[in-house]
């Protein structure tokens, strides 16, 4: 029997909440103002930010459909660390701190709920088959950066997974590529919990519409980042994280960035 999928004309898609409930609230309000019929989250609810417990109530209140991220996987299964795979000891130190913090501040009921999240979701956007995943459809923690994701790989993934549009997150940097005269698309929706290493504190999510061709629009959102930066400091999380929220420059966990993406940042 074919899988039943919901059909939409206009959806909002976000990823990488990273325990930044303040930013998530601003994004959800923005998506509502722009008349998104449904909101989807591609995972990584915890890590980095100061408010893991504040995320799930917001997602529930706005009926957000969630895909599981690698971080959610780690929290749900009680993994000993986030499996972020850093080799820089400094990055590992920061990753351990924020993982322990997220574990300690995620209610048990939330953890059980994380375990129920699907690794992928499919919806219909007009006549287009949309596939949502966290990293890539073949691996939850594969980084699809703009400068390391070839057209040929995207075509193969779309064919292998029977989709016209692939949506992912996990890297924290947004990008959109139309393939084959706009018949197929790949979109990394970026992250709402952390700015995108561009020197401004704003965060981004994606609006997708069927008009009837696929239209992708990235939406910047400002929020009270100063209050979140203060909360990070008050909670004893690394000051570098607070600095990132204020300045918009990534200060840690840079080692996975490919050359082109790294060159755009300050550090």
């Amino acid at each position, binding site marked *: 029997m074919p899988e039943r999928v919901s059909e939409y004309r206009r959806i909002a898609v976000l990823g990488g909440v990273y325990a930044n409930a303040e930013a998530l609230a601003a994004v959800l309000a923005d998506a509502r103002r722009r008349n998104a019929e449904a909101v989807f989250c591609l995972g990584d609810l915890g890590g980095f930010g100061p408010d893991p417990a504040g995320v799930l109530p917001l997602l529930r209140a706005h009926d957000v459909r969630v895909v599981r991220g690698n971080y959610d996987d780690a929290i749900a299964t009680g993994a000993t660390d986030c499996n972020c795979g850093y*080799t820089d000891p400094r990055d590992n130190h920061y990753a351990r701190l924020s993982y322990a913090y997220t574990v300690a501040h995620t209610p048990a009921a939330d953890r059980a709920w994380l375990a129920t999240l699907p690794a992928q979701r499919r919806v219909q956007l007009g006549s287009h088959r949309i596939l949502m995943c966290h990293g890539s459809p073949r691996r939850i923690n594969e980084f699809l950066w703009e400068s390391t994701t070839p057209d040929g790989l995207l075509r193969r993934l779309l064919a292998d997974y029977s989709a016209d549009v692939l949506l992912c997150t996990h890297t924290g940097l947004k990008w959109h590529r139309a393939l084959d005269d706009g018949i197929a698309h790949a979109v990394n929706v970026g992250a709402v919990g952390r700015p995108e290493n561009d020197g401004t504190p704003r965060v981004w999510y994606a609006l997708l519409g069927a008009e009837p061709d696929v239209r992708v629009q990235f939406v910047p959102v400002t929020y009270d980042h100063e209050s979140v930066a203060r909360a990070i400091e008050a909670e004893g999380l690394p000051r570098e994280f607070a600095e990132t929220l204020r300045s918009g420059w990534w200060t840690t966990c840079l080692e996975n960035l490919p050359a082109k993406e790294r060159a755009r940042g300050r550090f």
Partner: protein
Amino acid sequence: MRAMSVVDAPTPRAPFVALSTLWLVLTGTLCNLRCTHCLNTSGPDAPWLPPLDGAVARRAIAEAAALGVREIYFTGGEPFLHREILPLLETSLAIAATTVLTNGTVLTDATADALAALARASRYSLEIRVSLDAPDAETNDRVRGAGTWRRAVRAIRALDARGLLPIVTATEIDGAPDAYDRFRALLSGLGIARPRVKILPVFPVGRAAGDSAARLSDADLEGFDRTALQCADTRAVAAGGVYACPILAGLPGARLSDGDLTAARRPAALYHAACLTCHRTGATCRNA
């Protein structure tokens, strides 16, 4: 004499998932240096593994593109000794992010300029990995040869000055637990704003081969996700064939086809002592 039980144990295999990473052993084992730990015993003498013909490399790149490859790596030997490296990089960068592993000692300013132009012209990242084995010249040169530290550091500066953000790639040969931080300090000291460091284990193969008969067994791999091994999604093209990974390229036991990547999409034997290192350390030869 090896223990019979070791020899007789069935060789475990890694499944093949997809061709994600293509390695081209561009210069074979031809190199201007003769590092003490070189994993394929490269050097200036007649190479035991000959350089790749440019046409063979181009065919491999095209075939890999059709198979949905994610990243391409050029290695050797010293890839900048190949006379076609720049046009081959251009071909590769047209279809995927491409990385060159170099010792940095033969990189001229003109080549650095050409690399910067190639990087600008491509939508995909060009990565240059420059090898060092210690942050200080004396220790490094004991492994890599006299004067190599100074020349590699010069290349690192030349690449950085052109916005190429080289990745300094080191082995754990000096055994210092703070190697990562010391390399980063070296780069920061050179005025490099975005220091990038990758540390790899020393693999027991080539000049660093030991005499241990220990091999991976199926029992070692129980409960382990074999698709996480490099040889589940990596293939290396060298003169004379396609091999399971760049570490074992050229060795008969790792040979999977006579040059056809499609035919090499089959399970690889985890037969070598280096497979043990790969499994134990979770190391990847990729950039990240």
